[in-house]
Structure formats: structure tokens, C-alpha cells
């Protein structure tokens, strides 16, 4: 239901962030995230940065497999 895209924050101004995914750039709303800084990674959905994230899923896989 919710296609998300992880992207890097390029700049932030007035509640709007420019994000970059592999060179594709777009303005998105940064309204939901305080203290967003260039270089942060975010999950973007429908033009809104919905969460600050860690970019790579590699470490996460190890962490999750540690649960079992």
C-alpha cells in the first residue's frame, strides 16, 4: 500500500527538503521530521519524508537474524 523510497537529504529549508535518490531529485515536505540535516537519509512516501532512516539494509539483516 505504501511504496517508499529511501533517499538522501540534499538541503532543508522552511519545512521543505530536497532529496536525492540515485541522482533523481525532488522537493518533499519535511514537516514530519524535526532537525533534518543534509546528509541524513529519509523514507519518502507521496511527497513527504515520513521517517529518518539508516540507508543500508545490510546491518539490519544481521540485527534481525540476531532475534532468532
Amino acid at each position, binding site marked *: 500500500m505504501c511504496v517508499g523510497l529511501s533517499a538522501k537529504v540534499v538541503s532543508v529549508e522552511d519545512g521543505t527538503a530536497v532529496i536525492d535518490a540515485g541522482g533523481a531529485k525532488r522537493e518533499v515536505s519535511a514537516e514530519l521530521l524535526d532537525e533534518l540535516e543534509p546528509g541524513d537519509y529519509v*523514507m519518502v512516501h507521496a511527497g513527504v519524508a515520513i521517517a529518518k532512516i539508516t540507508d543500508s539494509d545490510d546491518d*539490519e539483516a544481521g540485527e534481525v537474524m540476531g532475534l532468532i
Partner: protein
Amino acid sequence: MNTAAENAKDIITSYKGRKLRIMEVCGTHTHEIFRQGIRNILPPDVELISGPGCPVCVTPVGYIDEAVMLALEKGAVVCTFGDLIRVPGSEMPLAGARSKGGDIRPVYSPLDAVEIAEREPDKEVVFLAVGFETTTPSACIAVKTAMKKGIKNFSILTANKTMPNAYRALMHSADAFLYPGHVNAITGTGVCKEMLSLGVSGVIAGFTASELLTALAVIIKKSETGEPFFENCYPRVVKDEGSPAALRLMDEFLEPVDTEWRGLGIIEKSGVKLRDKYSDFDARVKFSLPEIKGRSNPACRCGDVLQGKCKPTDCKVFGKGCTPLHPIGACMVSDEGACSAYYQYALND
């Protein structure tokens, strides 16, 4: 693929034991699981059921009729996520309204619809607000932005849905839920823990191949203990508290209402509408839309499919009268719908 994901894949492919029925609630999960070929490596004892988490699929026919009416009779510019354009209404889909001259525009974000309204002040612009907790904040931000800029020719037609009561309605449909990671990014883990207290198992999963494989491996291993369980398998995105800012925003703008899910019927307090103080932005109020009761095709078993009661291939019209090109039911329209995914990706069925 990383080693942990390789291990996860081994755990999945070598599983033999009690039959496990896992419901992937989220349409994007359904789509990714097919696209990555994960369904084709599952052992016979693991069954994936595609749940009701495709907003396009659960949006009732009457909603499409409302949107068509806005475009053709009210002359509004109807902005929508592309997903909705082909969904059949009682008379026609939005694509049909467009070929009759309706101004239907696919957008990436509800905020783009606000910009269109700002650029074209002579037109009334309506955004079709569908989606779950992940998507709903964007509609709220759009309304907030329109208010701030004093844009009066913008409104939204809400059909947003919320998951908690849907889980409760479906709690006996599967042995474990694969919870929709991006919904939980907003709502946090509370709902899942509540389900655990009711004895319902599940894990929150991400969307990459590695995330899906590890989440499925965790379900398999935890199920072997026989105890109900919950784990967050998407920690790089989902925090326990979710997004307090998004939750506050939704609470400010929206109030819960009973709502119809296509195929499932009315589920109590599982939808939202704009609070009365924001009714200037509510398309139903603005255009005095009559209540429309949509007619869906009776042969279609979308409802049973969405509840995991039957597989898409069990439906009589699947692949015959109902194909992605000429869909009868909503599950065949959206790329994330179970029927469409089965039709498009299944190798041997």
C-alpha cells in the same frame, strides 16, 4: 545478497512442519514478494495470503463514482495517485471519464494538487485522498498548506483507512501477520503489541528482498516455539513511537468514521473524514455530493480474496472475464492487488 539474508533464505526454503499461513497485509509487500520471486522459493508448508492492504482494492465502487461525478458533472480537476485511474466504477473508471473530457491528472503527491490549485485559481481542484496511515499525513499536510497559502479552490475527497480495526476483523485469518512497515513507521509498534496481547502473532517487515526474507525467517523460527510473538524486523525505519508529528497532524485534521471496505463491508472506526472546522476542504461538503451506492460485479470474489478465504485463482472470473486489461474487481486493477499480482507474476498457475 548479504549473508544474513542468505541464512534467512535457507531457513525459509528448508522449512518443513506445521502448515504456516502468513498474511502479508500490505499491497506493496504483495507486489514486492512476487517481483522478487520470493513466492516461488516458498516450501509447500508456508502459504502467503494477500490481505486487504491495497488501498485501491478496498476503496468501494461508490467512491470512484463520486470522483467521476466530480470530474464530469462538477467540472473539477481531479488529481489522483495513478493507481486509481483504471479502477472500475459503476459506470466507468476515471480513465473513461478522462476520455469523455474529464480533467483527470495523476500526481505524485497531494502537495502537487495544491500547487495545481494555486497555479489555476479559476478551477476547482480535488485530490482523491486514499491510503492508509502512511499516506494520510500527506493529505493533511496538503490541507494545511492550502490553508496557510489561503488557497480556496482545493479540497480532498477522503477514503483514507486505518488499520487497527481491520487487523481485529482479520485476526483469525492467518497464523501470523507480516505487518506493513511503512504504516508502522507512522503508527509505531503499539498496535502490533496490542494484537500480541490478544494472542495474534506478527512481525513488522520492510520491503527489500533482504528485509522480506529475514522477516519471513523470523516468523518461521518464532512459530516453532508455539507461543504468540511480535518482532520489529524493520528497525532501520520503524521506531516504537512511530511518528508523533504525523499522529498529531492526523488527529488535528481528521476524525474517525465507520467506513466501507470493498469486499469486507463496514468496519467500525476504520476510516477518517475531515473535522467539521476544516469542512471547506471537504469535497463532499463543498460540492454537496449525494450519497452514492456503487454497484460492483456480483461474480467477483474480491472480498473473499482480501480475507484470505480463497485464492485469486479460485474465483470464477479470474483470468477469464477479469484480467489486468479488463478488470472486473479492484484486486485485478491495482498492481498491488492480489489478483493482479497472481495474474502478472505467477509462473505456473
